[in-house]
């Protein structure tokens, strides 16, 4: 089998011995009804930078708690879409709504770079994620819990400089999780990691998404990552959603299984077609 993960890289996510129980828990997820995640509705969204129209009318509805992956060629506008959803850019035309009022702590972003403060220890870096609750009395306890969630509770007193790339990214994940967000936007969060660390990080992402039931938006250039993690894959071409593919493969998904490979192949074909006939 392709599950050649019996050996682990130095910062691989520690797999508990009850891994099978964990997987069974993931499998049950389909039957769960209510999610605390935020729904997302986008209508007629447009965005230009100067003369360059990056997004040309995006319409999208993401139900609460869904895991959506956005793929596309570089420069297709997928990162811009994510930054607009996260409120990091201003909208030119159209609307983005989350089905009600949101607090800033409800939506968190994780970037390709961990963006940790090098002069703050791991624990204080996670506490940054609490936003306005930083001063509250349970800040420490919540940061501790988030660090445990990503398996780095033994690193709380370290400087970021001594952590590996994967560990830094896990601290960044803990920082994003610590405010109990209802939507997490990932901008190629695993793009800079080596293959093994990537796979263990993908499992970690899937697990926290399952446990905390937030809505997840993942921008990635890696189609296999998209089909492995997401409920739904959006292909963006020329500033529009060109394909909207449901991934009806039950979890836990076996990496390298035939259905995943077939789906990945068909999405890749879409992407490559536009490359050949722009």
């Amino acid at each position, binding site marked *: 089998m392709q599950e050649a993960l019996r050996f682990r890289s130095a910062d691989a996510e520690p797999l508990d011995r009850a891994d099978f129980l964990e997987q069974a828990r993931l499998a049950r997820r389909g039957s769960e009804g209510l999610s605390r995640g935020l729904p997302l509705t986008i209508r007629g969204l447009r965005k230009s930078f100067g003369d360059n129209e990056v997004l040309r009318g995006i319409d999208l509805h993401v139900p609460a708690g869904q895991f959506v992956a956005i793929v596309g060629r570089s420069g297709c506008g997928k990162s811009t879409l994510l930054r607009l959803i*996260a409120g*990091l850019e201003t909208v030119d035309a159209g609307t983005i709504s989350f089905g009600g009022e949101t607090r800033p702590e409800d939506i968190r972003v994780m*970037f390709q*770079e961990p963006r940790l*403060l*090098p*002069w703050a220890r791991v624990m204080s870096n996670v506490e*940054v994620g609490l936003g306005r609750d930083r001063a509250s009395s349970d800040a420490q306890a919540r940061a501790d819990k988030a660090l445990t969630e990503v398996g780095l509770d033994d690193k709380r007193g370290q*400087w970021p*400089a001594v952590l590996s790339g994967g560990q830094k990214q896990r601290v960044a994940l803990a920082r994003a999780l610590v405010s109990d967000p209802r939507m997490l936007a990932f901008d190629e969060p695993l793009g800079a990691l080596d293959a093994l660390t990537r796979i263990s990080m993908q499992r970690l992402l899937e697990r926290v998404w399952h446990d905390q039931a937030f809505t997840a938006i993942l921008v990635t250039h890696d189609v296999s990552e998209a089909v492995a993690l997401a409920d739904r894959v959006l292909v963006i071409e020329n500033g529009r959603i060109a394909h909207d593919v449901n991934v009806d493969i039950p979890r836990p998904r076996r990496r390298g299984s035939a259905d995943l490979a077939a789906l990945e192949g068909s999405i890749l074909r879409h992407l490559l077609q536009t490359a050949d006939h722009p």
Partner: protein
Amino acid sequence: MSLIESLPRVRSLRLPRADGLVQWIVPLAIILVWQAACETGFVPARVLPAPSDVALAGWKLLLSGELARNIWVSFWRAGVGFVIGGGIGFAFGLMNGLSQLSNKLSDTTLQMVRNIPHLALIPLVILWFGIDESAKLFLVALGVFFPIYLNTLHGIRTVDPQLIEMGRIYGMSDGELFRRVIFPGALPSIFVGVRFALGIMWLTLIVAETIAASSGLGYMAMQAREFMQIDVVVLSILIYAVLGKLADSASRVLEQLTLSWHPAFQKH
């Protein structure tokens, strides 16, 4: 097999419990050679007195209290001038780094002033202040101002914009953003400025004291020249070297304390 591997293995030279002393081997050797050269008459005493004579001169000045008084006066001038000039430089660096308006208003002027060698102002300064304390403080402050201003400005400008964006996303207020992201990010650069400034501080003070002063180390050296006391002249020069080294060490300790997060300062 690489070249390195093919070389015979040599145990690296390590002095037990004396790593901190290694740096003093060369200065000590220089003093020994110097002493020997004077003893043998290779260097005439008129040109360069022996280290022992210099030490003796130092001892005499120490007993008379003159040495301590002059060192203290110089030290005080250096410190006060540094604090004034460094403080103003730091404040301008912060303002111009954080505010576009402030930068537009003052940066051009400061860059023009920077290109005037501050020691060229000595005649003007003597006309303004005479030879009392304010003249020396003014010159030291002016000399120290620019390295600290420029490096503070540079440090703030080069703080990683991704970290600033991160801070904003996580809801940091302007004050918090400054305290937690911008200032710590600029600190390594500010320290570079401080170390440059320390060098300029001594240089300025020496020149100012030799030209226009009635106390201080520079004055002591000039007085000694009048009376052909070459040992005292050499003594003053050596004291400057020691004081410079002390100032540098102090800034290193401060760096170690505040930049312990920085990979370059981590103890292994």
